[in-house]
């Protein structure tokens, strides 16, 4: 039986969030174009972002949070669309490891996103319609370049720290390679310097699911009044499995039935794990744009820091002044510890000041978003040490 992925959010509502987000907003006028790797100048464009805490008079306590593929700028506040808590409230907030009483936290929605920063769901000023597939293909470098323009606009020359998991970690690494003097300390978590063939493969399955939905209409679903929620939900279901682990799924669901004693001998969601995945799919389509999913997964696929440095990763971080803390999780098979070790290896070869911790957990890739006391202790300790070196008072 086909899953019901609902119609919770009207496409028009989502389009409104893309153009007029309930967030802080900076617009870059036509005289400040964003030069993309695709060779196109994006202009005008806008960046939606959230901030927490206060920037000190020296402007030296800023922490940039880079969100993951399906995240957004709502790190530590109620999400305006889903009405759920921010995605990293366990990490960011007053007295938390990233302490907003001490640091000024900024999180921008990524370029290509759908929560207010210019992306395929935004209105194309030359047509008055959503960009759709007319939007240029992006790279992680483009996303970071846009963030650098936001920091310029905010008058922040260098950030005290930068943290992100997964695609957020890719942005952190790209920042450290592109603008080493602007990053005092960096926390790349559960990430890699290049997207692996396996990860590209998972993304391709997700994209094909979206495109196979007849309501996708070559990306013109806003104009045609359709919504490819079924395809996007299936993409999300597939990806979500890769964020967990066999052990975590087994612990959570085992082979238990959902609200029934016996199998129904049908294709209903008999198993709890099926019901859970369907829920993940349907709640995702409420807040996310299908084309954004295509563009951002593509940006991740293209990411390969070493390729930008003649294949020598160490050159990406040569003589870097940044203090690094690389963190991985034992059960993360999407961005395994070996990927983090490759980062550490390259940083060591470049003489960087690097810490590296692997955290034991069965929660898989998603562990960076979850309650992991050891993760919090490590982030807190690393930032304390960096704050001392930066001369930040308590």
């Amino acid at each position, binding site marked *: 039986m086909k899953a019901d992925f609902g119609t919770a959010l009207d496409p028009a509502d989502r389009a409104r969030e893309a153009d007029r987000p309930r967030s802080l907003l900076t617009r870059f006028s036509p005289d400040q174009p964003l030069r993309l790797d695709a060779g196109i100048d994006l202009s005008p464009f806008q960046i939606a972002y959230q901030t927490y805490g206060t920037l000190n008079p020296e402007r030296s306590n800023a922490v940039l949070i880079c969100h993951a593929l399906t995240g957004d700028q709502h790190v530590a506040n109620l999400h305006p669309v889903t009405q759920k808590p921010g995605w990293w409230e366990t990490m960011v907030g007053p007295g938390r490891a990233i302490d907003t009483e001490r640091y000024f936290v900024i999180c921008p929605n990524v370029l290509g996103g759908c929560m207010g920063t210019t992306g395929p769901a935004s209105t194309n000023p030359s047509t008055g319609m959503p960009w759709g597939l007319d939007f240029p293909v992006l790279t992680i470098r483009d996303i970071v370049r846009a963030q650098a323009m936001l920091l310029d606009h905010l008058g922040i020359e260098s950030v005290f720290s930068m943290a992100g998991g997964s695609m957020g970690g890719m942005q952190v690494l790209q920042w450290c390679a592109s603008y080493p003097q602007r990053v005092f300390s960096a926390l790349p978590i559960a990430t890699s310097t290049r997207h692996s063939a396996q990860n590209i493969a998972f993304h391709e399955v997700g994209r094909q699911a979206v495109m196979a939905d007849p309501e996708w209409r070559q990306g013109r679903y806003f104009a045609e009044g359709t919504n490819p929620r079924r395809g996007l939900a299936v993409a999300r279901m597939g990806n979500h499995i890769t964020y967990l682990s066999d052990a975590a799924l087994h612990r959570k669901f085992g082979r238990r039935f959902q609200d029934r004693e016996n199998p129904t001998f049908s294709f209903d969601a008999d198993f709890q794990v099926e019901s859970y995945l369907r829920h993940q799919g349907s709640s995702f389509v409420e807040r996310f744009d299908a084309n954004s999913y295509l563009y951002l997964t593509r940006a991740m696929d293209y990411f390969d820091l070493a390729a930008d440095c003649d294949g020598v990763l160490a050159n990406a971080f040569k003589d870097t002044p940044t*203090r690094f*803390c*690389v963190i991985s999780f034992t059960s993360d098979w999407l961005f395994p510890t070996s990927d983090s070790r490759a980062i*550490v*290896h390259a940083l*060591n*070869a470049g*003489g960087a*000041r*690097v*810490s*590296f*911790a*692997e*955290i*034991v957990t069965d929660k898989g890739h998603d562990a960076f978003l979850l309650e992991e006391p*050891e993760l919090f*202790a*490590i982030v*807190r*300790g*690393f930032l*304390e*040490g*960096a704050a*001392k070196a930066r001369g930040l008072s308590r």
Partner: protein
Amino acid sequence: MLTRIKHDLTMAEAVRGPGGARVDLLVVAEMVAPGAKVLDVGCGDGELLRLLAETRGVDGRGIELSREGVNECVAKGLAVIQGDADTDLSDYPNDAFDYVILSQTLQATRHPRIVIEHMLRIGRHGIVSFPNFGHWGIRLQLLLGGHMPRTDNLPYAWWESPNIHFCTIKDFRQLCGVVGARMEKAVALNAWGGALRFNAPWWFWNLLGEQAVFLLSRRS
């Protein structure tokens, strides 16, 4: 292999100096020039790195095998990575550090000679501290007791000890000759943490020193 648990295994009941720091670590710290760049291989819970940062103002890095030790170090703000002295030292470029330290680590490695050679390659100086298996108390246990020695500092039964390559001061000097290391300084500590007389002959150190600390450099 580096230390497997939080604290250096060999130093479970170590003698401590006036400030609470382990005497052998104080001896190591005294050999390090202020402000130097230091790699502590097998840094345990980071006690030496912290001591070096506080008393010598060094730029310290650490490698530690146990995840528990690493995570404790990072949470203290120390730059420590999880790694294995036997396999991961080859990743470091030549002359990357002023000092590479093996504090109570060497006897727990699988290939002490290779580890020492890497130490001399990566660092302009090397500092090695280890328990002296030539100490009279240890000799006596083997001679009269007929069993593998166990002391306060070396409390493990032979079948569970992480220390797989014990040596005497005499043996270590021989290794220094084999790998072409120059001995710049050597200190032997007695059971009470006191340094033995400087002008004593080597056989005397080898008999009465419970711990030894060597400052080495590459023979140019």
